[in-house]
């Protein structure tokens, strides 16, 4: 099986596996206690926190560990809104943000009653900023939206999870700074691969996407950012994330991040060349296909294309049968009622969609074999659907 779905999850890095197994034995005790085994767990946790913070451009005391990237986003959005109640409860977000951002913003702006009176321009609720055909957020519209009165929080991803397009985070951050609005940056798709852009007030990342184990997310809150946890009081993780901390998984995540970043420059260049190959060859090999997302300003490992007249689920099933694990943002299936909000916002085909995302060590031979089998798979599905 050729695993080409790194944007869903990266396979566990060998360095993380080793660290995990070791720390299951050495870091199991409660890091909040005062005896030897507890102090050892505390030391391991502190070291991992320092390392992860430095790698992501944060200070150790700004970083809390969550159970996932989604949870980091949820707690980050709700906590930032809680800290801004005096200003309002309006949230500005790119239209192609991850659903965790949009759902948390919708909930938070409805359930965090602003103490400031709503004005016509600063009404509560979620404001989504449109994107271009390549999925890049409209910077002028973003800046205008954050400067409107009553805006409590802005949210922007580093790269889109379905098509790989990079967002103008540094420019958006400058607009937020001018408007005095905190910015939540969702770095889940790029942390461990690309440097985290400056200018965030709240940062969310996910360890399993950089080769760490599942069950570790990162929530960083910049010093000086008003933040009020939406959850009941708990002494763990600076009161931001309740519950016992998973020290072995966090230590393993730090090991994976260190290893991934050390390999990133060479590996990004190699994977990006394979992505370029897919972007160039797919339209040559398959008629009526569109490669989407930005060809240059993109994550190094993600490429997405859409095949006209093809049911995406049928296509993924056929590719699985031939030994390829790939994903799709399209959802013309009985199980989901709505097409992908990302593809919809971009104005591109919402059916027949295939996302290829290359993990560390992805083989050129697998990508070439994928390009070899794809044309016939698409042709047969179209034939079955009655499209000549």
């Amino acid at each position, binding site marked *: 099986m050729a695993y080409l779905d790194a944007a869903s999850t990266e396979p566990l890095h060998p360095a993380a596996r080793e660290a995990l197994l070791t720390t299951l034995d050495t870091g199991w005790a409660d890091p909040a206690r005062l005896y030897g085994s507890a102090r050892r767990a505390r030391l391991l946790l502190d070291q991992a926190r320092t390392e992860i913070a430095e790698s992501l451009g944060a200070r150790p005391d700004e970083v809390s560990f969550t159970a996932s990237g989604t949870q980091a986003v949820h707690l980050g959005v709700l906590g930032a809104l809680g800290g801004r109640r005096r200003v309002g409860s309006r949230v500005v977000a790119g239209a192609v943000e991850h659903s965790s951002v949009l759902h948390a913003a919708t909930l938070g702006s409805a359930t965090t009653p602003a103490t400031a009176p709503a004005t016509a321009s600063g009404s509560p609720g979620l404001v989504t900023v449109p994107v271009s055909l390549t999925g890049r957020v409209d910077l002028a519209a973003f800046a205008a939206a954050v400067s409107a009165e009553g805006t409590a929080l802005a949210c922007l991803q580093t790269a889109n999870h379905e098509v790989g397009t990079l967002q103008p985070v540094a420019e958006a951050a400058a607009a937020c700074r001018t408007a005095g609005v905190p910015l939540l940056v969702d770095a889940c798709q790029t942390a461990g691969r690309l440097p985290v852009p400056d200018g965030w007030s709240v940062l969310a990342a996910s360890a399993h996407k950089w080769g760490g184990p599942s069950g570790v997310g990162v929530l960083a809150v910049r010093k000086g950012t008003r933040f009020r946890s939406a959850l009941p009081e708990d002494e763990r993780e600076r009161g931001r994330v309740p519950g016992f901390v998973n020290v072995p998984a966090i230590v393993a995540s730090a090991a994976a991040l260190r290893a991934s970043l050390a390999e990133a420059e060479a590996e990004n260049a190699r994977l990006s060349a394979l992505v370029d190959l897919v972007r160039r060859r797919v339209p040559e090999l398959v008629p009526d296909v569109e490669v989407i997302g930005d060809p240059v300003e993109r994550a190094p490992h993600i490429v997405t294309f859409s095949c006209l007249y093809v049911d995406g689920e049928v296509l993924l099933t056929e590719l699985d049968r031939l030994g390829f694990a790939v994903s799709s943002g399209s959802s013309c299936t009985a199980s989901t009622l709505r097409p992908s909000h990302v593809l919809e916002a971009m104005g*591109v085909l919402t059916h027949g969609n295939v996302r290829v995302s290359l993990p560390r060590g992805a083989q050129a031979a697998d990508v070439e074999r994928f390009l070899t089998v794809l044309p016939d798979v698409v042709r047969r599905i179209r034939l079955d*659907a009655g499209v000549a």
Partner: protein
Amino acid sequence: MSSPVQPALTIDALGKKCPIPIIMLAEQINAVPLNAVVAVLADDPAAYTDVPAWCRLKSHPHVGTYELPQGGWAIHVRRNY
């Protein structure tokens, strides 16, 4: 949007899931004269995006999208070639 022109052909894809509405459109657009308008009636939310995207890919102008009183849309496409 301004009031729709009278289509030369109406394709009833109501109740059909994507990609069937655009498969029907691709099959039938050549049945109308050049510059005539085809209306696709569809209520799958994907069609709202997919028919205009098909127009862009196939270089047929998307004339407009009009809500239907019973739900769904009439999506008008002009045959370009």
